[in-house]
């Protein structure tokens, strides 16, 4: 009896352009797709993950080749021709599928390696699968192990520790300067896209108040509305410095718009509360000397980029460690799977032996009328000891991994033949 294959089919941001991913026939929510997948022939257990960067279906089946076509058909319908699909869809089986799942859970396959969000998404997806009981003993174990692997990667490596994009680096710096960000305000000077992104991150980290200063007030008003903030004109810039804590500057001005002597008097008004300037404009908006003032910090785009570069190098080193952990966990899981395969035979073998033992004991003990309960116990003990010792070697033979000459499947068959485990009913003795 060959065991079921574990199959993982999916598309992600690396393999598949957005146009193709958009054609996936998944409408919002997990319930409906999970139910429909369950109706496909040949799928035993299944689970589905859908995030903005990836869609993956994980299932167990006896017949991987036949089910693959069905699942692909379910996912894409007729929107994408089959030949093209092969180019975009990755397909892993068994150990490879396990490894891929662990990589995804540990955020090693993410667009931003090390970001923590994916594990939450995985858990959410699994919650739906287990609520609808589409996952069974194998997938339950597998998914729990993937959470475990992700946790190990997070605690044993520094992979998620550092910011690898400009706006994250800016947020991280802000946290090092201000600690909590929730009562801080940020001012955007100039309303560029990058400034908007950084502001978005800061707001995501709890920054309460957003002020937008721009040359054209209309654009400022629009952007401010997005963040529930207020718009001011560029002339109020210095006045506003008294009230905000973080300034993201990205105007198209050719010269500097703020100099050290503009900022210095402001610090007195602010009672020296720190100011953090982020200058992402090229050419730069802010005078470099501003950084010399006490409690004032100025980072320009080059400073931030070099932090990001440094963090990336660091992260790549950590990724090697993380991959080793994933490989370890994959091996452990494969081992468990292998034992799963052996288990039914072991159970049957034990059952058969116990049956014989019980039968013979009954026969013998029935004839011995005048023995004490103590003596009866001894005889029972002896019988089961004999059985256990007789079975010891065959069981070791089944379980052992050292026996590389004989393949596991073959070993199972040998034991089954030898003990006639499959022939009891259907094939009486000649």
């Amino acid at each position, binding site marked *: 009896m060959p065991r079921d294959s574990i199959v993982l089919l999916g598309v992600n941001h690396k393999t598949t352009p957005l146009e193709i991913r958009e054609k996936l026939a998944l409408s919002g929510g997990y319930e409906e797709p999970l139910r429909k997948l369950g109706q496909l022939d040949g799928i035993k257990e299944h689970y589905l993950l859908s995030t903005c960067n990836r869609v993956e279906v994980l299932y167990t089946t006896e017949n991987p080749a036949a089910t693959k076509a069905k699942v692909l058909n379910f996912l894409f319908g007729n929107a994408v021709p089959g030949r093209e699909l092969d180019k975009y869809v990755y397909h892993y089986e068994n150990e490879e599928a396990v490894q891929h799942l662990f990589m995804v859970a540990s955020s090693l396959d993410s667009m931003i390696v090390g970001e923590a969000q994916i594990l939450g998404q995985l858990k959410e997806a699994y919650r739906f699968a287990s609520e609808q009981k589409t996952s069974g003993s194998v997938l339950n174990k597998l998914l729990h192990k993937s959470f475990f692997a992700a946790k190990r990667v997070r*605690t044993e490596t*520094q992979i998620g*520790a*550092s910011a690898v994009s400009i706006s994250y680096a800016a947020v991280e*710096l802000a*946290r*090092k*300067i*201000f*600690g*909590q960000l929730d009562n801080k305000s940020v001012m955007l000077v100039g309303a560029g896209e990058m400034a908007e992104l950084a502001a978005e991150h800061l707001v995501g980290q709890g920054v309460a108040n957003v002020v937008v200063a721009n040359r054209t007030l209309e654009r400022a008003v629009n952007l401010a509305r997005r963040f529930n903030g207020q718009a001011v004109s560029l002339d109020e810039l210095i006045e506003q410095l008294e009230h905000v804590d973080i300034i993201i500057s990205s105007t198209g001005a050719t010269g500097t718009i703020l100099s050290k002597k503009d900022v210095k008097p402001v610090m*007195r008004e*602010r*009672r*020296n*509360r*720190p100011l953090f300037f982020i200058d992402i404009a090229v050419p730069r908006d802010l005078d470099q000397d501003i*950084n010399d003032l*006490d*409690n004032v*910090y100025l*980072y320009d785009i080059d*400073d931030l980029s*070099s*932090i990001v570069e*440094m963090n990336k190098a660091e992260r790549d080193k950590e990724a090697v460690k993380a991959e080793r952990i994933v490989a370890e966990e994959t091996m452990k899981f494969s081992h468990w799977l292998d034992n799963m395969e052996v288990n039914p035979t072991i159970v049957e073998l034990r059952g058969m032996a116990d049956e014989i033992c019980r039968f013979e004991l009954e026969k013998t003990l029935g004839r011995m009328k005048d023995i004490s309960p103590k003596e009866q116990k001894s005889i029972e003990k002896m019988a089961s000891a004999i059985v256990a010792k007789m079975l010891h070697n065959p069981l070791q033979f089944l379980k052992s991994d050292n026996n590389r000459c004989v393949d596991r499947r073959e070993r199972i068959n040998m034991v089954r033949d030898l003990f006639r485990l499959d022939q009891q009913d259907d094939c009486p003795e000649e």
Partner: protein
Amino acid sequence: MSYLLFQISLVVYFAAMSTYVVFFLSQKNNVRQIARKIFLAGGLLHTLNIITRYLEAGHTPITSQHETVSFFAWAIVWCYLSFRWRYTVKNLGTFVSVMTVILMFIAALASREILPLVPALQSWWLPFHASVSIVADGFLALACIGGIMYLLQEREIKRKRFGMFYSRLPSLDALDKLNHHCLSVGFPLLTLGIITGSIWAKQAWGAYWHWDPKETWSLITWFLYAALVHQRFTVGWRGRPAAIMTIVAFLAVLFTLWGVNYLLGGIHTYAS
């Protein structure tokens, strides 16, 4: 008995410091848990040491050099532990444990002899004046450690070159708050220490103030902290200048505690 406890607590502190350093470098959370427990154990043993010493000597053990420094270390440990109870400041424990071990070594090198109490010290003001002053110094020491951490962290952020401290030390804001809290506790205690000392001086020597070197330096220290606290509360002085000032003022504390005895003498020097 008390000396044995002293040695044990020194060893335990040393173990805690080593564990804290390991944690500082590896940043593994379970190591920190262990370090914290060892440090707490050290603090408890040290408390026991001071109690037994009190029983052996028959007076508050803050008279000799050994006793004073040991009590100083004890005060720092418990200021830190009481502080930790309310705020967490990342990796502060590492710095505190290093300072504690240094002080304990200094205490170990000084003479441990229990000296009979000179008549001037035989007063119930002794436990009060001495312990209040030294607990004040404990908080000021913590403020100084915070100041050092602030300067290390600020340097890396200002220079935009991140070394080993950037990720390990807490935010500038947290360190500045540490400074603020320690000063708001330490400074009133220091003031109280000087006032009680002056009242005691009136009883023992007949005048409130003698311009004895120790008193003079206490006053200088007090003025330094008063200036710092005043600036903080009025114009919001903070950050680097405040951190430097905290460290300088603490050097004055150390000088008052030791330098005066060795270099200047005076009637405050009892054991030599």
